C-alpha cells in the first residue's frame, strides 16, 4: 500500500509522525534517516560534550516509538531524488519508495564558506550531529587549543561544552558582538563577559584571512594558534531536493500556513522550511526545535487529511551559558 514518506528523522519528522497518527492510525509511514540513529535531541550534543547529557539517553522518543506508530525507518539512507509526477522518492542505494503524501523534514547543514588555506588544516570539525559531537569528543585532550569560527548559538554552545576539557578556546566572528542575530549590544556584552569568566577568549569584528596547519591569521593581523578547528559560521536549509524539481525555494523551502510546498502532495517542515512568521508578517526560516516539532505536526495532520493551520509562529530563543540565561522573542532588532 502506498503510504506516507518522510525525508529526515529529526524533530520535524517526529512531529509529522505524531500529526499523521492523530488522524490516520493505519497507513504505513516510511522515514528516511540519513543519520543512522533514532531521532535524538539535537540541542543536547553540547551537553553531551560537557558530560551533562548521556548519548545513550538522548533519544527524542521511547525505543518502541517507530514500531508503535507503524513506521519503517531507513537508517543510514539518503533521499537523492523526488519525482513529483510519479510520486516516488529515490534513495542513495537505488531503492524507490512510492508516496501518497511526502514531507521534506531534512533540516539544515553547516555552511562552510571558502576560506584560504582551510585545506591545510588537519583537525577540523563542524557541530551539528551526534557523529560531529563524537568526533570532537575523541579529538580533544586537556592540552587542546581550540579555535571556533562563529560566535552564534552553535559555536558558543560548542565552546561551553568544551570549556572544562581543553587548554584554551578562542572564538572569532565577523560580527562585532556574540549571538549577533538574537541579542543587542547590551545583552551580548553580558553573555560575552560570562563566557570570558570561563576562560573563553574572543576575537570579534574580525575574520580569518588565512589558515595554515596550526594557526590562523586574522584580517586585523592578529594570529590565533590552534590544533583543533571548529567551523560554526552558519547553517543552510537543505532545500536541494525541492529546488531540483522546480518547487519554490527561498532561504528555505517555501510553504503556506498548512506547511504545503508549491508542489502538490509535498509538505516541508522544520529547519529546511520557510514557513509563516507572524512577527514579520512574511515567511522566514525559524530554525528552532519547537518550531520544527509544531510545523511537523501541522504537516502530518494535513497530509493525513486533517485541517491544521500554523500561523502564529514567531522567532524565539531560550539561550544560556554557564547559568546566565536570556529569553528573547519576536524581532529583536530593527531591520
Amino acid at each position, binding site marked *: 500500500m502506498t503510504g506516507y514518506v518522510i525525508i529526515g528523522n529529526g524533530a520535524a519528522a517526529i512531529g509529522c509522525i505524531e500529526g499523521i497518527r492523530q488522524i490516520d492510525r493505519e497507513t504505513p509511514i516510511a522515514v528516511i534517516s540519513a543519520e543512522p540513529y533514532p531521532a535524538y535531541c539535537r540541542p*543536547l550534543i553540547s551537553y553531551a560534550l560537557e558530560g551533562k547529557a548521556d548519548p545513550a539517553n538522548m533519544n527524542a522518543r521511547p525505543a518502541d516509538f517507530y514500531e508503535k506508530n507503524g513506521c519503517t525507518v531507513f537508517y543510514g539512507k539518503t533521499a537523492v531524488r523526488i519525482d513529483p509526477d510519479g510520486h516516488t522518492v529515490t534513495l542513495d542505494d537505488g531503492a524507490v519508495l512510492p508516496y501518497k503524501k511526502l514531507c521534506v523534514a531534512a533540516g539544515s547543514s553547516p555552511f562552510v564558506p571558502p576560506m584560504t588555506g582551510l585545506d591545510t588544516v588537519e583537525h577540523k570539525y563542524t557541530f551539528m550531529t551526534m557523529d560531529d559531537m563524537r568526533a570532537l569528543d575523541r579529538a580533544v585532550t586537556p592540552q587542546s587549543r581550540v579555535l571556533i569560527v562563529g560566535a552564534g548559538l552553535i559555536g558558543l554552545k560548542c565552546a561551553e561544552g568544551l570549556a572544562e576539557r581543553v587548554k584554551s578556546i578562542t572564538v572569532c566572528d565577523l560580527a562585532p558582538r556574540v549571538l549577533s542575530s538574537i541579542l543587542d549590544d547590551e545583552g551580548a556584552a553580558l553573555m560575552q563577559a560570562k563566557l570570558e569568566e570561563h576562560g573563553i577568549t574572543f576575537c570579534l569584528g574580525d575574520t580569518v584571512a588565512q589558515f595554515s596547519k596550526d594557526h590562523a591569521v586574522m584580517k586585523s593581523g592578529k594570529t590565533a594558534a590552534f590544533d583543533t578547528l571548529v567551523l560554526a559560521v552558519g547553517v543552510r536549509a537543505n532545500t536541494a531536493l525541492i529546488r531540483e524539481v522546480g518547487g519554490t525555494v527561498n532561504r528555505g523551502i517555501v510553504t503556506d500556513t498548512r506547511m504545503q510546498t508549491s508542489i502538490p502532495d509535498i509538505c516541508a517542515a522544520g529547519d529546511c522550511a520557510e514557513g509563516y512568521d507572524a512577527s514579520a508578517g512574511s515567511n522566514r526560516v525559524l530554525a528552532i526545535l519547537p518550531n520544527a516539532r509544531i510545523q511537523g505536526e501541522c504537516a502530518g495532520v494535513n497530509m493525513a487529511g486533517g485541517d491544521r493551520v500554523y500561523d502564529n509562529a514567531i522567532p524565539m530563543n531560550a539561550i544560556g551559558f554557564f547559568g546566565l540565561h536570556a529569553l528573547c522573542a519576536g524581532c529583536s532588532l530593527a531591520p
Partner: protein
Amino acid sequence: MKRIYVNEEWCLGCHLCEYNCAFANSGKSDMASALKGRPIFPRIHIEGGDRVTYAVSCRHCTDPLCVKSCISGALSRDADGVIRIDRSRCVGCYTCVLVCPYGALSPGEDGVMQKCELCLRNATGEPACAAGCPNRAIVYEER
C-alpha cells in the same frame, strides 16, 4: 480528568498554597524541618497585586506547548493526562519557561525545572495546595 481550578474572588493572597506545595514535594515528614528558615521552591505561585490575587500552576493542557518545545525530551504527557517532567533529562535551558503561557515551570533549588504534577506521586496523593487552602479558592475537580 481532575484538574486544579482557582477562584480569584476567594483567594486571600496568604501564600499558604506555596508552602503546602513546597512541603508536599520536599519528601520530608515535618513542615518545620522542610521549610523553616530556607528559601522555598513551590510549583504554584500567587500572582496579582493589591486588588486581586490568584494561584497559578500547571493547567495540564491537552495540547501542551512545553512538551512540544522541550529540547531534551524531559517533558511528556502521560496516559492519565498529567504533564510530567523527568528531571534527570532536563538540562535547564529555559525553553519551557519561554513557551508556557501560564508560567507553570520554574527552576527548583538545583536549577533543574520543576512543575506541578498534582501531588499524585508524592506522599500527599492529591494536590496539597487545594487540600490546604483555607478559603477553598483552589479546588481539585472534574469539570
